Structures are given as structure tokens and as C-alpha cells.
């Protein structure tokens, strides 16, 4: 079990480290599918024995079908893991907080390159996930559709002729699909256009969430746009709608950056330069400050201000500065003050030109 975590830790995080379309603004594209097994209670109502049985049934289907590259895939049972290793899965976006909070009977299967994974017994029996760098929902859909077919050929999914895939929460019923793109929108934030933009997108029945702590205000100008409705449209139609809106959003962001350069060039350069200076020369960095500075540096990389600095280095730092990642790298538990010191050291090291 611990070997698996250590191996995972040595992985490049491909959705951050590899190149993708529109990667200057779109960081990653992800789709999750909710699926349940007919004849079983949903995890919220099931007992421990039933939950463990479901884990085995899904693992078996993955192994037989070769989905996720199983049996050579990672398999994690959170109830047998320590707090730190569990947090690591969260920081790598392989597990949700809800999933890790469940007391028993959960399992996470992950393809060796982390591009595909399945949370067993989160809110639904299966939450299938695929993720790719940049803005490429159609390619992500192709992958997850295939993965879903592999598992679905060996599992009896709960399905209703008119309601589609039956999910624990009726907000996911139908396609069970939640598609999202993580966007870096500093131009819209700095020009004050982000609030009306978010309101506009909400009116189109799409959700916008700030990233960097659920419920808190957004950090680092990172936003996630996703569909809300899962019933009454095909997957392709939902993705088309998302593609159109996100395409427009990317164009807006580009315009906003141009506008900043034309109207207020020195404010933008100052913002980027100070962000870089902080990351390059600090000896104590809080998580929030680091995320905001990384966001500033990312704009500078996009504008061609740092020729020696690669955008993927910056992307990977967003995960590397996480509390669990810092502690795993240090090989021991760290308190908040120690983490700030380690975080600053990591940023200095990685940004050394």
C-alpha cells in the first residue's frame, strides 16, 4: 500500500506536466461519470458488508476487462491509509473530500499514469474519472466512454429507460456526467469582469466554482466551469454547450489580457514581477500566497516574459506546494510554519532559471 503511494508520488502529473490545447488559459479538462449497480443500495444506505462486496465486484470487473490497465493499476483502500496519504490523493485530484470522509468500504482504482480512475462507493457506487491537460473535452469524453463500456460490459448498471443512469442524488440522474474545465482567468479578474462573466455563465445553466478550498473565495484566479444539468440532453450536446461557452470565455480572457497590456502595461508587469520575486526570494510562503504568486507568474510565462521558465513547471507547482505533497517530500509530518518554509524552498528551487 505505501509502496503504491510512493510510486504515485514519483509520477509526473500528466494533466499538468503535458502540453494540451489552449493550455495558456485552460489548465485541464475532466469528466466524471456516476454509475450504480442494480440491486444494491446506494453507499449512503448500504452497510459495511455490502460496501466491501461492491468494492470487490468493481475491482474484479476492472481486472477482467483490463480497464485502467488493471491488474497493473493502483488500488487504494482509504480506510487502511494514514491521514497524510489520503490527503495526497485529494491534492492530486484523484479523490474527493466526500470520498475520503466515508468511514469504510471505499476503494480508489487509478491507471498508472493517473489519467483515469474510479472512486468506488463515493456518493455513487462508481465515479469514473478521466483527465487530460488543456481544453479537450471531446478527447476526454472518448476516453471515458471507452472506460465506461469496459466496466459496463461486466457490471449490471442501474438504468431506467426514461431517466437514464440512476444516481444517488437526482441532480446527477440521466447521463450521470459532470464535465469540467479548469481555467486560469487573471485577465478577467484584474479587469473586474469576472463577476458579470460568472453570472452570465450561471444563467446558461453551467456552474462556475473558484478553486483553492471549497467555499472560500477563489485563489490564484483559477476557476472550474462545469455542466449542471445531466438529463434531457445527450452527452455530446452537453459537451457542445460547454465547448461553446468555454471557447468564448477563453476569447474573453485573451481580450482582457490585451486590454491590460494596452491600458495599464506597468500594473500588469508589476503584478507579474512581484509574484516572481516573491516565489524566487521568499523563505516563508503560505499556501494562499504561493497560489496567488504562481498565478501571477503563469501570466508572465504566457506573455513571454520568462523565456527560461516552462508553463508546466508552474502548473506542477500548484500541486507540489500542497500540504500533503510537501510532507511526503520531506519524509515527515510538518506543522504549518515548517510547511511554509518548505514551500518557499521548493518554489525557489523550481524557479531557479
Amino acid at each position, binding site marked *: 500500500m505505501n509502496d503504491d503511494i510512493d510510486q504515485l508520488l514519483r509520477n509526473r502529473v500528466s494533466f499538468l506536466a503535458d502540453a494540451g490545447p489552449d493550455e495558456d488559459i485552460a489548465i485541464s479538462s475532466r469528466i466524471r461519470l456516476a454509475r450504480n449497480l442494480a440491486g444494491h443500495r446506494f453507499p449512503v444506505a448500504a452497510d459495511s458488508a455490502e460496501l466491501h462486496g461492491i468494492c470487490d465486484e468493481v475491482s474484479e470487473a476492472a481486472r477482467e476487462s483490463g480497464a485502467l490497465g488493471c491488474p497493473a493499476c493502483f488500488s487504494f483502500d482509504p480506510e487502511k491509509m494514514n491521514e497524510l496519504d489520503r490527503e495526497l490523493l485529494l491534492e492530486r485530484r484523484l479523490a474527493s473530500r466526500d470520498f475520503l470522509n466515508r468511514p469504510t468500504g471505499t476503494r480508489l482504482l487509478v491507471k498508472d499514469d493517473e489519467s483515469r480512475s474510479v472512486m468506488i462507493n463515493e456518493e455513487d457506487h462508481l465515479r469514473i474519472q478521466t483527465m487530460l491537460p488543456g481544453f479537450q473535452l471531446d478527447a476526454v469524453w472518448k476516453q471515458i466512454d471507452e472506460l465506461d463500456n469496459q466496466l459496463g460490459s461486466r457490471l449490471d448498471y442501474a438504468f431506467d429507460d426514461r431517466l437514464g443512469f440512476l444516481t444517488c442524488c437526482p441532480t446527477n*440522474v440521466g447521463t450521470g456526467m459532470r464535465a469540467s474545465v479548469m481555467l486560469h482567468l487573471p485577465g478577467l479578474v484584474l479587469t473586474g469582469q469576472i463577476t458579470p462573466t*460568472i453570472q452570465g455563465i450561471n444563467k446558461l445553466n453551467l456552474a462556475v466554482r473558484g478553486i483553492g478550498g471549497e467555499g472560500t473565495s477563489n485563489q490564484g484566479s483559477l476557476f472550474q466551469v462545469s455542466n449542471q444539468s445531466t*438529463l434531457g440532453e445527450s452527452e455530446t450536446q452537453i459537451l457542445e454547450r460547454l465547448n461553446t461557452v468555454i471557447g468564448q470565455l477563453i476569447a474573453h480572457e485573451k481580450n482582457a489580457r490585451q486590454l491590460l497590456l494596452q491600458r495599464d502595461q506597468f500594473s500588469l508587469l508589476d503584478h507579474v514581477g512581484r509574484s516572481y520575486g516573491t516565489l524566487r526570494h521568499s523563505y516563508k510562503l503560505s499556501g494562499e500566497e504561493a497560489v496567488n504568486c504562481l498565478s501571477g507568474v503563469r501570466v508572465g510565462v504566457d506573455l513571454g516574459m520568462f523565456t527560461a521558465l516552462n508553463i508546466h513547471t508552474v502548473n506542477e507547482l500548484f500541486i507540489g506546494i500542497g500540504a500533503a505533497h510537501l510532507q511526503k517530500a520531506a519524509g515527515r509530518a510538518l506543522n504549518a510554519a515548517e510547511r511554509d518554509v518548505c514551500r518557499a524552498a521548493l518554489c525557489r528551487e523550481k524557479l531557479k532559471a
Partner: protein
Amino acid sequence: MLCDICKKNEATIHIKEMHGGETHTANLCAACASEKEKNGELSALGFNLAEMLCNLGKISSVLKPPQEQTQPERATVCPNCGWTVDKVRNFGGRLGCPECYKVFAPMLAEAIKNVHRGSVHLGKRPQSASHDGRAALEAELNNRRHELDALIKREEYEEAAVCRDRINQLKAELEQLTNGEVDHE
């Protein structure tokens, strides 16, 4: 806590909204919330859907005249998992098992209509599901219509003609199904 709108009634419905990346909570009484809902204002906000689903259940039970708020409805229990109306509400609209969709269908119908853009599944179907049912035909018809628009836009007229033929065939099959149902009655 008093309702944000009328400032008189107790607020029982709490809707989270996102503004500029910050979360605000709107606290409403059932009457004001149902007023907003009727005006279609709720669907324009970026609020927590699970919460709304659960709250809509509350709204409809409040709106129903007392004689219709019958004991049997409140006492509905899913025979498969033991889930109750109270549990649906306490767990934020979540259900206990796939069978619950049938057991709580009347309560769910309105909520599902409010949350989603349609009420019939038009997407992917598991390989094991039947492909000749009405919903399957409707789903394919929807997808083919979509495909036809795209083909015409790309000026691929030969492909479009094939697609149109399939659409007509699907329409005929659906009509046959409808007539069949009438005959059986």
C-alpha cells in the same frame, strides 16, 4: 433567522449563490421561495442544486392544502432499502437505492424537472439495455436531428440525406409504437 425578502417569516430555505467566486447564502421563507420559483428566478441563480431539490420537496408540501398532505405520502417507505420521505429530505435529496426512483416518483418528478434541462434521458445507454423501447428511439431521434444540423452546416449533403432517411424511419417506428399503445387500450 428571518426571511431576506419579507423579513417577517422564519427562513427555512437556504440557497447558496456564487458571486465573483464568493459564496453567499440567500435565506428565504417557503412563501417567498415559491414566489421566486414561480417567476423562474431560482433557475437563473447558481445555487446548490442538491439543496434546492430537497427544499423543493418542502415547498410543495407547504403549498399543498392540508387535506392533501396525507399520512400515506409521508409514510411512504421504499421496500427495498427502507428509505423514507424524511430521509430524502435529511440527506439533501439523496435516495437509498435505484428502486427509490419508483417509490418516490411523484415527489421527484417536479424537482427533476426544475433541476434539469429535460425529463427524458437522451444520452448513452448501457450495452445490456433494450434498444427498441420508446425512450431509446426518442434518444436516437434527438441525436440524429442534431447530427443532421451539423451535416447541413458542413454542407455534407449526401451524408445528410442518409441521416434524414433514418430520422423518418425513427419517426415512423415511434408512431407505430404510439398507435400500438392505443390499440391495446
